[in-house]
């Protein structure tokens, strides 16, 4: 019989998501790919918050409230980030971040 999921299971899942997000962040050349990796990082943190709400501090639902804030900030980040990506594409004809080094000299 497989074990009932505990807090540790959810935290390990969050750690896996976070590690994969960092991997994507470090290796992607495409700016949209980097934004997707950042969404993975946000979701890892959100899963941890919700798991802690359920298993450690259920009264008050502080973790779920903070997850709502995380989702809101992620939406704002995606909107601004993708606007910047469109602007970069318009100016450089490409969104490979290793080619965009005009601030480096």
């Amino acid at each position, binding site marked *: 019989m497989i074990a009932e999921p505990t807090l540790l299971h959810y935290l390990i*899942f969050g750690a896996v998501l976070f*590690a*994969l997000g960092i*991997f994507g962040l*470090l290796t992607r*050349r495409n700016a949209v790919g980097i934004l997707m990796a950042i969404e993975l990082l946000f979701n890892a943190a959100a899963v941890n918050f919700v798991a802690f709400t359920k298993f450690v501090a259920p009264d008050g*639902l502080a973790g*779920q409230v903070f997850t709502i804030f995380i989702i*809101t900030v992620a939406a704002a980040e995606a909107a601004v980030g993708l606007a910047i990506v469109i602007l970069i594409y318009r100016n450089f004809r490409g969104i490979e971040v290793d080619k965009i080094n005009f601030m480096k000299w």
Partner: protein
Amino acid sequence: MNSGVFYVLAIVGAVSALMVVTLKNIFHSALFLVLTLFSIAGLYVLLGAEFLAGVQVLIYVGAITILMIFAIMLTYQLSSGSIKQVNEQVKSATVIVLIFFGLSLAALLKTAWPVGTADLPKHNIFELGRQLLSTYVIPFEVVSIVLLVALIGAIIISRQERQEGS
């Protein structure tokens, strides 16, 4: 029953997250991101956060991923799959991520996690709304302003610049 659902959702989520960061075609990565976000919504249901599961599907799957697919279609030539998607740091990044994951796994396993005795409130969504408009009303308003500012900023950034006098 419950535990089986957890393992299925966790494995689907982790494998599709791996696909998100490793696939060559960025468009396929975006589709696998949808799958990851859906399985996380399922985990929220298992954790007794039904409202968050709905919000996850509406905002992440419905809005953010669609926005990303739009950005991919506007900027990336889908036909040319030969563009290299990863930089030359794959090996060192793998090592760093494995070290990070090993350390965090060791820390997670060694920590004695406190266990709450209380249970989740019976009317979860009711309690969440009450908290948002009483204890957390100031952060709630601030985050609304953040969203508004981000909206205006995104419009201003991506607006076509007009030539003066034309």
